[in-house]
């Protein structure tokens, strides 16, 4: 593997990892604080991507569409919470799985009906469209570097909020002993709603920044949701720091693994075969990691203290 390739793979892995973190952050809080399994969290990612597509089309400007999309993603998250999810908090996990599965089916189909089954794409915003010279032969798009920067900034902001603000303290307390927090006069329902809304908005934000790079299509949130679950299990349910470490880890392992595994398989098989076996093996890596964590360190890498789930 050449140094250029390694560098690109690391950047891609980092970028993918930060994207995963944005999705996993909301998921781990909702799961950790409320003990609620929300399979429909992945569709928020899809919703974000479609929103930026729609608003960019309407306003003609990415910069204008961005805040509009974020607000709309928040609104949709809160609407779902109000209409469906709040009735499920006290229900068994299976009911939560089933109902949120129903939401996925509905929203995926709705996206297909509203926007068609075709893959959509939006252009990279003009102010981020260039590329920088990485090596003599190769340039790397500025937009991708920008997503890495923004992802890191959000991660730091989130971490600071959880660690140092009153609301962050309540969230931490809420995830450990919700009864105690309620007894102290905090409106737990309200707290849950805030956590839920922020989580939905972060997943939507991930969809927004992914839109110019990846394809916008119905069902795009399904597989990333499963990976996000893997991330929060590896990191430790309810732990923001854990989610961050695990997301970066998963992003790098997955991206580098694909390339390395394919190279490794090429030693034994022809190119077509190697490209079939390599990525398949690489895709297994993160699940192997998760299974190992569950068997040997069930609380995750950086567990939050005393989580309800």
């Amino acid at each position, binding site marked *: 593997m050449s140094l250029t390739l390694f560098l690109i793979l690391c950047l891609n892995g980092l970028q993918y990892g930060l994207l995963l973190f944005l999705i996993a952050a909301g998921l781990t809080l909702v799961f950790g604080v409320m003990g609620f399994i929300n399979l429909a969290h992945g569709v928020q990612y899809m919703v974000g991507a479609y929103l930026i597509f729609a608003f960019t089309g309407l306003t003609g400007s990415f910069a204008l569409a961005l805040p509009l999309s974020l607000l709309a993603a928040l609104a949709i998250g809160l609407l779902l919470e109000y209409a469906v999810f709040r009735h499920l908090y006290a229900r068994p*996990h299976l009911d939560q799985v089933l*109902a949120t599965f129903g939401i*996925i089916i509905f929203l995926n189909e709705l996206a297909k009906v509203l926007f068609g089954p075709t893959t959509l794409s939006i252009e990279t915003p003009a102010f981020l469209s260039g590329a920088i010279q990485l090596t003599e032969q190769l340039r790397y798009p500025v937009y991708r570097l920008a997503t890495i920067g923004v992802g890191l900034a959000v991660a730091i902001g989130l971490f600071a909020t959880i660690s140092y603000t009153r609301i962050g303290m309540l969230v931490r307390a809420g995830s450990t002993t919700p009864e105690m927090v309620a007894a102290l006069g905090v409106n737990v329902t309200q707290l849950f709603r805030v956590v839920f809304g922020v989580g939905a908005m972060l997943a939507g934000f991930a969809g927004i920044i992914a839109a110019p790079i990846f394809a916008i299509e119905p069902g795009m949130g399904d597989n990333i949701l499963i990976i996000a679950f893997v991330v929060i299990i590896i990191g430790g349910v309810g732990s923001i720091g854990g989610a961050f470490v695990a997301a970066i880890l998963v992003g790098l392992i997955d991206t580098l693994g694909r390339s390395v595994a394919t190279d490794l398989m090429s030693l034994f098989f022809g190119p077509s075969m190697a490209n*079939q076996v390599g990525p398949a093996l690489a895709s*297994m890596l993160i*699940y192997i990691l998760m299974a190992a964590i*569950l068997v040997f360190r069930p609380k995750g890498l950086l567990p939050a203290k005393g989580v309800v789930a």
Partner: protein
Amino acid sequence: MARDRMIGAAIFATLLALPLLLPLVGADYLMGLLIKAMLLAIAAISLDLIIGQGGMVSLGHAAFIGVGAYTAAIALESGIEEILILLALTLAVTALVALITGALALRTSGVYFLMITLAFGQMIYFTFTSLAAYGGDDGLTLWSLATLFGSDVVQNGEGLYFFVLATLLATWAGVHRIGLSRFGRVLRAARDNPQRAEVMGYPITRYRLVAYVIAACIAGVSGLLMMQYAEFVSPAIATWQRSGDLIVAVVLGGLGTRNGALLGAFFIVLMEEILSSLLHEWRLIYGPLLVILVLYAKGGLADLMAPRAKGAG
């Protein structure tokens, strides 16, 4: 209990009689649909054994369907055509895979069990996609199918229908039996109060593992039959979404009730068929329907049909 059995008997009597009526209206298509529903029902009943009775929610059960289908398909491709031999192979391979994954997975419980079964399910799924010699992602068309004592009676049409029906009946009766046995009672005791069951001297992990392996084997058999019916196998048979569908069938039908899983599976297949023939965008109805059923029909379909006390086998 008696009521449970009566509903079961009524369902099976209907399934037995239908092929006699079908030629009158001339619909091969409906027979195919019923086969599909029965195949899903077999897998759903097996999942209900571990979810309903064992309290172990697995999000990787479809992987065992895949293991069964691929084992049989690969054996077929290597020239083994006798379905009874394929059955034995399928049972052996799924049992082995379930034993290994189960032993590890059962070190966890609750949501963590769900996630670790998902992990194993995904590993198995990606193993299928890597089988380049058997089509990889594209799947494999089976140009020769399994035979029963050298005859092609179980390859399609009524022969296959009755073979699947017999398997479904055996599954239903077998799981029913387990529910009534001491084994079943221990399993439910471990679900409701693991500490107490343990104190009473039952090695609950071993009980759970046995249930997990039995369920996997039944799912494997349904996989073998799915391959035989579809004449095709692809990794899609083992995706986590398929495992989700199975959970939907079990929960929708009613947890821990044999008829529940049966009804749930038929409900899903027929609902999909009816809705999709009415409206191309049928999922717009199906999704909210699931949500409404969860919110308002807590005991599942079986409960709607025959309300009764919870928790009985």
